[in-house]
């Protein structure tokens, strides 16, 4: 069946339900799907997490290793979040270099964690301008069921929280691993990403794949523990009114608080 016609019918059905305040899977409009977080799933990594958000499932691994600082950022460690949609996660995903969607996904996840200043990068310096600690937070989508932005962000945050950071000492200007000594990463705040979709006049939290296929526009808002708004990304081929966006920012704060509590249990 023509997928465009299918999406159209789906949209009609979803909109009919939304008019009665309901969603296809029974959730209310501002309700997230159940979030299940398991950490330590990849023992060979320095930190890791497996996250299920409804039908979406992510595995994140964190590798921590000495690195050279970026030029002009010699007083900071390195933090890089990536994301990949594995071809087994989605019938439409293709192996090969990342397309624009995957690049956006990775950059939005990275930005949420970077702009909230979750990690105190100044504490990851071994010798200023010469040697720092690098944290690579790689997320793989293994089942794609909508709202990859939040799911990858949660898995990345959980992976970081689960980390044990090895200790390096400097000998002859080179970092040498100190066996058996580890510490927790220097966490300053807990970022929570909340993604909402607009379908018609309705804003729904944590859209499923079906809802995404017929949404008008999307917005991802990341807040920190102090209730600040730190990163926003609008997507999708239509827009929002200013009022809708302010409503979204409030929803992001409210929903974010629940997720943050779940994160706190991991610390």
């Amino acid at each position, binding site marked *: 069946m023509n997928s465009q016609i299918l999406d159209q019918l789906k949209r009609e059905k979803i909109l009919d339900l939304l008019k009665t305040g309901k969603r296809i899977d029974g959730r209310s409009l501002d309700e997230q799907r159940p979030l299940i977080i398991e950490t330590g799933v990849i023992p060979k990594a320095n930190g890791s997490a497996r996250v299920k958000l409804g039908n979406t499932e992510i595995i994140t691994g964190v590798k921590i290793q000495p690195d050279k600082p970026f030029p002009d950022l010699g007083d900071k460690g390195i933090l890089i979040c990536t994301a990949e949609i594995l071809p087994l996660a989605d019938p439409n995903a293709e192996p090969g270099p990342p397309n624009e969607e995957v690049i956006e996904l990775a950059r939005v996840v990275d930005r949420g964690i970077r*702009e909230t200043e979750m990690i105190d990068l100044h504490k990851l310096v071994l010798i200023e301008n010469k040697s720092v600690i690098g944290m690579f937070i790689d997320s793989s989508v293994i089942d794609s069921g909508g709202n990859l932005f939040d799911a990858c962000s949660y898995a990345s945050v959980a992976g970081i929280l689960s980390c044990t950071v090895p200790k390096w000492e400097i000998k002859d200007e080179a970092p040498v691993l100190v066996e058996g000594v580890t510490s927790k990463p220097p966490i300053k705040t807990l970022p929570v990403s909340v993604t909402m979709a607009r379908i018609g006049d309705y804003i729904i939290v944590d859209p499923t794949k079906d809802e995404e296929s017929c949404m008008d526009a999307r917005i991802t808002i990341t807040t920190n523990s102090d209730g*600040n*708004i730190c*990163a*926003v990304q609008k997507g999708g081929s239509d*827009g929002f009114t200013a009022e809708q966006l*302010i409503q979204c*920012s409030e929803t992001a704060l409210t929903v974010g608080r629940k997720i943050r509590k779940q994160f706190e249990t991991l610390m």
Partner: protein
Amino acid sequence: MTEDGIRCDGRRLDELRNISIKVGVLKNADGSAYIEFGKNKILAGVFGPRDVHPKHMANPDSGILRCRYHMSPFSVTERKNPAPSRREIEISKVIKEALQPAVILKDYPRTVIDVFIEVLQADGGSRCAALDAAAVALADAGIPMRDLVSACAAGKVADRIVLDVNNEEDQEGQADMPVALMPNLGKVTLLQLDGMLKPEEFKTCMQTALVGCKRVYEVQRKALMEKYFQNGEQ
């Protein structure tokens, strides 16, 4: 910034940098525009509607919109590798999605409209300036549109919300929020934020940016009129 809100380049908190837009600057493109927005110097060229290559990307029910935002090697302080960076690919995507609501694609099934943006010199807010030029270039190409798209950033610098953050302010600023608006339909089609804003500041910042978008719209409108109506008036 001074205590009474005079910024490093002499502007007031709610003041835009100088903007000038020229329409129809390219001979090969179906539509084009050149914008100077502060120190940003950006060209946009539009081709289409035209056949899609490769063909399997065509949509039998609608035209498609493609967008490339690209920075010249000499546009920034350190020479930039000409291959598109991940940042440029992301910006291409958000610009495309910011323009798409304004473009009536349904009438041109199986075709593509290509928007090519070249940043010749980059300053703070280059994605907004690029969008402003691109929207004008689409109009110049005769593409049917529901509205223009007008973009402008606001941000937080030295604890104050300011309009249209420039490069120096961005470097040490606390937040940067690029916004695009369809000014007649009142829809925000691009919104990004890097930084840290309290909920109240978020609202103020967005409202400030929207005021900027509307002022940009006047500049876009005037530029189009200058090209299409001899005496600058309808």
